[in-house]
């Protein structure tokens, strides 16, 4: 599965400045593997030692937070859009 991944500013030093990259994977876990193959070091910026998403990293598949889907096991299909967004504080 080939999906478009939106990269936030703090991670663009790892993606050589790219704000969008294309990556493959049948689910989020595989996608992170592929991202790390293309851009070594990206995995440790997204997930902790146990493989869980870091607590200040939010990951969205087609605008939905993966915590409302299947987390790392969330399935991906061709044409999906994935967005990595730093957690941000609310504004009422």
């Amino acid at each position, binding site marked *: 599965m080939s999906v478009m991944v939106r990269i*936030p500013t703090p991670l663009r030093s790892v993606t050589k400045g790219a704000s969008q990259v294309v990556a493959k994977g049948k689910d989020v876990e595989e996608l992170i593997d592929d991202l790390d193959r293309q851009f070594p070091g990206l995995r440790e910026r997204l997930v902790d030692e146990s493989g869980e998403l*870091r*607590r200040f990293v939010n990951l969205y598949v087609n605008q939905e*937070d993966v915590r409302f889907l299947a987390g790392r096991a969330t399935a991906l299909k061709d044409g999906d859009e994935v967005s990595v967004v*730093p957690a*941000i504080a*609310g*504004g*009422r």
Partner: protein
Amino acid sequence: MRRPAVASVTSSVRGLACRECSRRYPVSATHVCEFCFGPLEVDYDYAAIGRRITRESLAGGPPSIWRYRDLLPLDGEPLVGHHVGFTPLVRARNLADEWGVRELFLKNDSVCHPTWSFKDRVVAVAVGKALELGFDTVGCASTGNLANSVAAHAAEARLTSFAFIPTDLEAGKVLGTLVYGPGLVAVEGTYDDVNRLCSEIADRYRWAFANINLRPFYAEGSKTVGYEIAEQLGWRAPAHVVVPCAGGALITRIWKAFQELAALGLIAPVGTRMHAAQAEGCGPIVTMIKTGADTLVPVKPRTIAKSLAIGNPADAYSASAAVKASGGSAEHATDEETLEAMALLARSEGIFTETAGGVTVAVTRKLVEQGTIPRDEPIVVCITGSGLKTVEALESRLPEPVRIRPNLAAFDRALAHLKTHTQASPTVREAASEETS
């Protein structure tokens, strides 16, 4: 970008630092640590601040948040929002009698200048910082109050502004933004959708988003609620503060404000217990605290307290930590309890707050009834916004006005009706019965 405003005063800000890994950054419009994604916070030179301020110097300052400007992250004199803050701390004797508590105070930000919510505090700082950094456009993701305040302060600063809101907001909050002439964008989705989109927009456009890339500065404005409470109580922190939580920044910063004042020797060591209030239909922070969880579980909001409807609050971790460190607690209010509490506050104290204030009052009552807050200890309840912004919530619960022809006989008949159908105080009812007897 425009020419940055010139700093004219010595700043006590040393830079920004990551709350998680302590990595340091120079002052700029950035909010996330590049290495761990942790939130960045302003790093102050407290020794220098301590040499500059005393209780007397603070008390001699203007009746606004700017009396505490040494503890706020602007480099120069305030550029906008000169009259923001220093709202009344109201001794609530009637409500205290009703609940059987000894000392009850309301920190009443429903009358905060200029847009009637505590958001004016954070926005005055954020827009001032945007000017210092040379931005020509400011923006925000908002559930209403923040949009009102950003649009108003941008108008004063002659900056272009864009506010992003969910589509289901109350009419007062929409009109109360549009009147200042911003670009107002209603996004189909929840506040959390708006927030994510704005984060992506902030990445693409060179705009200063109050609660995104200016967040380290913006959030500091909330500390002034804590400074004011302590000063207005005669330089002491109360035993209890009850605070509504949406993103979780306010409760965190009130706690921080007390710690700062104590560290500077301006108040005694802090024994305050911080209590978090959320709606039952959107209470991820309260749930996290009550269950002792280490991880935030986001929710899809379903509550009439739209200004608190943030299902994925990023300051949940620090809010939870502040409550725990203070020995405080957390509680939910149902929509029904919220509406009852709005009416209770209005009828007992003459203060009309929005739904968020209803949540906070309802939760305070609950904590008193549970015995979590002892009845003989001083309590401060934070009322953060005006009831005129959320009139829809109460509309169906209040009676219609009595309509009469313009003559005395008509009024006599109407008074008889009002006597039996209002909840006026006993004195008014007695006066009414005297006139008709």
